[in-house]
């Protein structure tokens, strides 16, 4: 499989996974690029597995988020405040979507990083074995953590929809 074929096959699901993980689509796009750059630089004779690709993207995202958060802390702590974007009026559909996004983001943030990865990898169709390898746990624990994460997500999403009513 060529690099182009690998990219065609996986770039969209990688973007979805990382953007859900980080709630930052621009950052997610950068991570997708960085993931394929890393693969290309490795000069592999065989293409990496899909699970390996996602694990690499997850690690790059975690590392990148730490750096990004550090930069943000420095900016916030400095004497010069960085102005945010001017408030804009969103069309109704976009406003609803933004609200939904905020609710899901809040719910995902309530999970541990491991639980979040388990839920999002399962959403991408990975087996418990692949997920267990990625997060460093047993296949039995994946089921338990998945069930726990579902409970937390639903609780949080229920709270949010309750807030709105």
């Amino acid at each position, binding site marked *: 499989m060529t690099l182009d074929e690998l990219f065609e096959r996986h770039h969209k699901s990688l973007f979805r996974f990382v953007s859900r993980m980080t709630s930052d*689509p621009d950052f997610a796009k950068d991570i997708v*690029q960085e993931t394929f750059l890393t693969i*290309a630089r*490795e000069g*592999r004779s065989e293409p990496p597995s899909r699970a390996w690709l996602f*694990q690499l993207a997850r690690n790059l995202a975690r*590392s990148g988020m730490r750096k990004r958060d550090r930069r943000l802390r420095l900016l916030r702590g400095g004497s010069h405040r960085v102005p945010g974007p001017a408030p804009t009026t969103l069309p109704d559909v976009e406003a609803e979507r933004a609200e939904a996004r905020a609710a899901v983001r809040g719910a995902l943030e309530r999970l541990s990083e491991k639980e979040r990865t388990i839920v999002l990898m399962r959403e991408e169709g990975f087996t418990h074995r692949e997920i267990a390898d990625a997060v460093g746990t047993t296949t039995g624990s994946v*089921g338990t953590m998945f069930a726990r994460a579902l409970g937390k997500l639903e609780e949080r999403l229920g709270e949010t929809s309750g807030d709105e009513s």
Partner: protein
Amino acid sequence: MSVEHGPAGTADAGLLVRHLHGELDEADARDVSDHLAGCEACRTLARALEARTRRVSDALRQADFPEPDEHEWRRVLGAVRDDSATRKRPHRGLLAAGWVLAVVTTAGLASASVRGWVADRWEGVFGDGAPPTAPAADAGAPGRADLSFRPAGPELSVLLESRQAGGTLTLRFVDGSTATVSVSGGGEERLAVGDGGIRIGNMSGSRASYELTVPSHVERVLVGIGGLEPVEVARAANSGQPIAVDLVQGVVVRSPTSHDEY
């Protein structure tokens, strides 16, 4: 497998999740199915888990960010292709910008392939010119390169660009202030050394092994392979014997306290 109820009065939710996801073997799946057929409480929990999964999936999809358009994805793929093509040019230093390099005190080499490797290393550190001090030849160790440097901080990183087809990284803590690194069995590997550690430009087909001695002021050693986040593999406080990292599996082996996969 017998399915038993826990304190909540139902089977373990994790077991039911594994069943719903088709992750149990045939015999266990049959046992859980038989149990569900006769247990209303567990059937209710299983249905609730299915419904929760659907609701969470729907919520995630509804909240998804718009994807970049095709033009943007073409640009991303183009950047990957360009980088890949550029890196294949000969005599290009492998070091990424920002990898700050400092003291390299000695280097030894013998074979032509290793000589090229050291030259690349110096290129990476000092640009395309010759190294300020010519490395000394060591005719007694063909196919092998040795160099030493002084790590500045309490943490030493070893970053390998690729998982290899063979080889190990063996490290041991020693008295003194100088770290040494030796490479054997390789040919294409390139190395950059700095205060923070070592960056190894290797290929996935490499079978090179690396031996690293770590001075006593370094408190911990981290290893990152193939772009994965560096992971701590050794602490000076626990340095009873050499620690080896299998560069194929990314597994710490022959360590007295760990056998960690990362």
